[in-house]
């Protein structure tokens, strides 16, 4: 059985429940921002932080890191959105976050150890991988969906990022899943 996650919805739900559980009065804003209506004590803060850690959720302490996280969130939103964004990514990010692209770009490279451009490519290839494994769309359709000018362009970027072609990727994961199923079945057989 394979399941598909909506990470955004999942995280929001967990956060929502945890905030309630800790008795905090809050308002969930976009991009992982939480507005607390009442100040909380250091002890409450630490307890909440510790509890969230189990879910892989972290309270970001520094402003710079927070801004970089926002850039990442905007990129993910941009790449995974169903509707094509009519402007260039750089303009979109700058307008969305209200800073010049030059500033954001330098900050991002400093904190994230990669450029915004490379991070966008990485996210696009991740999305392409999901779509390839879903088996619902042809590579041509996937290329179109991800705003590539051609299949060749997608394939080249895929190969540059992962070192393998989309079809090799598909073959490897399919074989791997078959292998896993065999070992799960033989385990059941022996038990």
């Amino acid at each position: 059985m394979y399941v598909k996650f909506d990470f955004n919805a999942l995280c929001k739900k967990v956060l929502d429940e945890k905030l309630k559980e800790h008795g905090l009065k809050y308002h969930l804003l976009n991009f992982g921002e939480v507005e607390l209506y009442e100040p909380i004590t250091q002890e409450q803060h630490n307890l909440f932080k510790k509890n969230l850690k189990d879910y892989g959720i972290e309270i970001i302490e520094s402003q710079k890191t927070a801004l970089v996280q926002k850039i990442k969130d905007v990129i993910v939103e941009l790449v995974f959105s169903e509707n094509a964004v009519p402007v260039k990514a750089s303009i979109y990010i700058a307008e969305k976050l209200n800073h010049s692209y030059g500033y954001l770009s330098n900050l991002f490279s400093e904190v994230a150890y990669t450029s915004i451009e490379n991070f966008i490519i990485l996210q696009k290839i991740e999305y392409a991988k999901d779509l390839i494994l879903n088996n619902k769309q042809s590579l041509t359709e996937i290329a179109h969906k991800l705003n590539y000018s051609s299949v060749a362009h997608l394939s080249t970027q895929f190969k540059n990022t992962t070192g393998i072609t989309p079809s090799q990727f598909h073959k490897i994961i399919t074989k791997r899943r078959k292998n896993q199923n065999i070992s799960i079945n033989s385990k059941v057989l022996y038990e």
Partner: protein
Amino acid sequence: MNKEYLNVITVDDDEGNIIFFKNIFKDLKIGVKSQCFSYGDDLLKYLNSSGVIIPEVVFIKYNIPGKSWMECVREIKINPRFSNIVIAVYAGQISENEIEEIFVNGANIFMKKAETYEGLKKSLTEIITVNWQYHSSGLNKDNFIMKVG
């Protein structure tokens, strides 16, 4: 952005390789805390002990004596405690079929080991940088396949 560094383990019986890996990791911009073992058995013994730090990345030499790369990969993959570990296998010249076998068995990365120090540094830097992105942005490691060099 869970923390400021990656924990990395290298498994290689060649002392010279270990020194190269260690030096390269030390010079990277991304913080790496590295440990080394000579054999796969030592790696698994370490991972299976209680209270140890589970690394984010493990590098295993393809033709390691003793417990083979494949046994190491399988033992790591079967234990949910290790589900977060990215496994990289490296070798000199091996065939495309052998490389595919590495991926199919569950490793994430194949690195063709460069002959020169500079080449090795380039490959390892690329691998650590991408791993940092997977680690700090919570990307799906099940789909993480990468061939370098």
